[in-house]
């Protein structure tokens, strides 16, 4: 397509943190009506670049032009004034306020009064234009993740954004929601808005974007002018600098059932409760749990991890019935757990990495005796795992929060696998990770499977589930509506079951 005058242009942007060059001489431009893909592995500098554009960081060198005019963007307010809106991975919404109130935050009203009528009219207009409808009076806490993201997009448009930056918007969405997002984005582009789409998922980038910029080690590693006709492996090579081959799953050789759930139900609580869930996972088997998020996966993970006690039903691990549900008892029976949310339920970001790595087992003889911790053993354990898993960090005493997502996930994996769990429960194991890191995690799961470990993978990425799992169970409204051998499963069939179409039999 012919390129009209750019909406936004970044020229020669460089930004360093200490000795680390996060961005080096990056050029990038977006034309009106264009969807630009921004690709790169974790730590390639995508987020830093977008934070420079959105005013969170001042660049060390380079300039930003908005419609041909050089501007200084020193805050998010400057960015908004220049017509740049950003939808972060973690939403910035006030959960107790309504949709409309969230939209009106920071918008000057008329003579000190909130302009409710005007806000409603704008919201309805944006909804009509792009198919982004929202109930203005619902509190944000009642919205699904997809709706919250829609609200973030509407918020940016409400403030007059002509360029929208989306940082991994599909990481939190179910496949059906992704389609809705894409059609909204296409509609916005058709009406002359510019969009920067950051993602790890190459098939999405190929389906949606008009042009791509690939970053590697802070520099532009390549530009793709026709993403739709470029293969995923070509793009992956640009991102990583080498070929990426997906790991092959060996033949199934499952042993006896190691984890069984029999008629597990939970009572109502925040989120979907479980209703009469029975499943079993055998040794050397990977069971995938598919489903649109919010259909009971969280409760399932919490019950298996011992955090939530079920109201009815029985759970056994390696033949032993779990009589008291607590994280320490199921752990003692041989359960390992990779949490969905690394930062909130996995790690302690403000303490040294080593502390997080021994957290679940601090009371065991490996790391303490008579109430005294063994600092040398803890440090040695962390150092050994950092080496074994190639966790990139200055050392075991580094603040955990300073590590990238992929390295944190490796650290969590190392912490659980070091003790040879009989059962491993993982949720969204590669969310937000780049291809290289995801590949590493997948290989580890398959290694564990070959060693006879039972693994449950809860996820929304159906391609990943199909690649890893021997069998896939689908959850809908707190029940398991069906289980397929992965040889019989397809994305289309799973997608149908996820809407509750099959099952209830």
């Amino acid at each position, binding site marked *: 397509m012919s390129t009209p005058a750019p909406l936004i242009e970044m020229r020669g942007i460089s930004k360093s*943190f*200490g000795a680390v060059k996060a961005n080096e001489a990056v050029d990038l431009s977006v034309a009106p009506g264009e969807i630009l893909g921004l690709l790169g592995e974790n730590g390639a500098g995508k987020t830093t670049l977008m934070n420079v554009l959105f005013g*969170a*960081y*001042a660049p060390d060198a380079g300039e930003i032009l908005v419609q041909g005019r050089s*501007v*200084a963007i*020193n*805050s998010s307010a*400057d960015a908004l004034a220049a017509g740049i809106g950003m939808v972060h991975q973690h939403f910035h919404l006030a959960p107790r306020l309504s949709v409309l109130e969230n939209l009106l935050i920071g918008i000057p009203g008329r003579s000190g009064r909130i302009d409710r009528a005007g806000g409603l009219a704008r919201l309805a207009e944006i909804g009509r234009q792009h198919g982004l409808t929202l109930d203005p009076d619902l509190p944000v806490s009642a919205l699904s993740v997809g709706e919250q993201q829609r609200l973030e997009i509407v918020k940016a448009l409400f403030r007059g954004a002509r360029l929208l930056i989306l940082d991994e918007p599909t990481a939190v969405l179910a496949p059906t929601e992704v389609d809705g997002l894409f059609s909204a984005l296409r509609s916005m582009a058709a009406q002359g808005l510019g969009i920067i789409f950051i993602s790890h998922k190459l098939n999405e980038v190929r389906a949606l974007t008009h042009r791509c910029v690939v970053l590697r080690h802070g520099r532009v590693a390549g530009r793709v002018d026709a993403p739709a006709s470029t293969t995923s492996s070509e793009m992956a090579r640009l991102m990583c600098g080498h070929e990426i081959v997906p790991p092959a799953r060996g033949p199934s050789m499952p042993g006896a059932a190691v984890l069984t759930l029999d008629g597990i139900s939970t009572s109502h609580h925040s989120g979907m409760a479980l209703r009469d869930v029975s499943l079993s996972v055998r040794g050397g088997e990977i069971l995938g749990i598919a489903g649109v998020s919010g259909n009971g996966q969280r409760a399932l993970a919490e019950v298996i*991890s011992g*955090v939530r006690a079920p109201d009815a039903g029985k759970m056994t691990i390696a033949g032993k019935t779990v009589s008291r549900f*607590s*994280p*320490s008892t199921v*752990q003692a029976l041989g359960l390992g*757990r990779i*949490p969905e949310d690394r930062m*909130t*339920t*996995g*790690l*302690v*970001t*403000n*303490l040294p990495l080593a*502390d*997080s790595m021994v*957290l*679940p087992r*601090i*009371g065991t003889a490996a790391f*303490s005796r008579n*109430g*005294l*911790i063994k*600092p040398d053993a803890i440090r040695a354990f962390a150092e050994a795992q950092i080496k074994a898993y190639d966790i990139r960090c200055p050392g075991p005493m*580094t*603040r955990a929060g*300073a590590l990238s997502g992929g390295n944190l996930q490796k650290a969590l994996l190392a912490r659980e696998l070091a003790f040879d769990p009989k059962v491993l429960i993982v949720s969204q194991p590669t969310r937000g990770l780049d291809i290289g890191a995801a590949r590493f995690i997948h290989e580890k799961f398959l290694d564990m499977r070959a060693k006879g470990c039972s693994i449950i993978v809860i996820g929304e990425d159906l391609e990943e589930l199909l690649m890893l799992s021997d069998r896939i169970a689908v959850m809908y409204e707190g029940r398991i509506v069906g289980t397929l051998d992965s040889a019989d499963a397809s994305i289309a069939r799973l997608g149908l079951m996820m809407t509750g179409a099959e099952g209830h039999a």
Partner: protein
Amino acid sequence: MFRLEARTSTPAWFNLALPLLAIGATLILCSGLIALAGAGVVEAYGVMFSASLGDSYAITETLVRAAPMIFTGLAVAVAFRAKFWNIGAEGQLLAGAVASCAVGAIPMPGPLAMLLMALAGAAAGAAVALIPATLRVKFRVDDVVSSLLLNSVFFYALMALIEGPWKDSFSGYPISPPIEDTANFPVLLEGTRLHLGVVAALVAAPVIWFVVARTTLGFRIRVTGENPEAARYGGINVERVLISTALLSGALAGLAGVGEVGGVHFQVMSDISPGYGYSGIVVAMLARLNPLGVVPAAIFLAAVMTGAEAMSRATGVPAFLSDVIQGTALLAMLAALLFTAYRIRRVGATK
């Protein structure tokens, strides 16, 4: 134009530099008040310094005053590590003072009396701290509010005691009966008030450091404070950790009261603590919640308090300046803590 930018890491020397920066800023800010009171700034600070740290007697007086603040500072530091917001060290101190005074008034051999006073005071402080901790764990009551308000409850309970059953029937003053002479803490240096409790406070700091840094309880306290969800998923009983922290914190604050009764006043009266419990918060923050840092921080505040009285006599600047310095030091430290998370960067002017 300047702006704040997020830091990725905090250099280690900040632990020392930030409190010094805060103290420096405090002294500069407060010099305005001294000038306003019509005194010379250099002279006033000079008197303050020489009266608190200028000779060996002054130093012992400062240490005697630092001892209760070391205990309350440790109490607050331990509690805040677990994010148990114990603002109630003052009430816990008073409870410790009353309990140790009651025990000290019973005739028995001196060493036994001192030991039992310490145990009773620690237990009383722990019991008081248990109230806000239990309310928080069982009913999700905000611990800042409950622990703070309990200070008034225990202050007026103490007043009721010394205006009522403990009132001196002979003089009619609202002071408790004195403890037995044998229960008085021994003075370590002839001609000074440097008593055994001061040594206990100086020993307590490294002990508490060890508990926080090297025991599984300390590990659980740190992890629970930084991320209770990760702690819970990791198999730590978060509620139990909060209760243990409260007991430890309350016991330390109670010991501050024991030292005042056994080593300084030998009885209980309404002004047994000039706000040592609240000063403990300033001490803990200046120490960045590090138990070892509590000692110099408490000595600094004690020097300010001791020095302020002498400065007042010599220059006419009201001794209340010491309260102003304490308050300013806390605010300056809180402001300085900003630099652990952010750096200041110079940027070009906005368009």
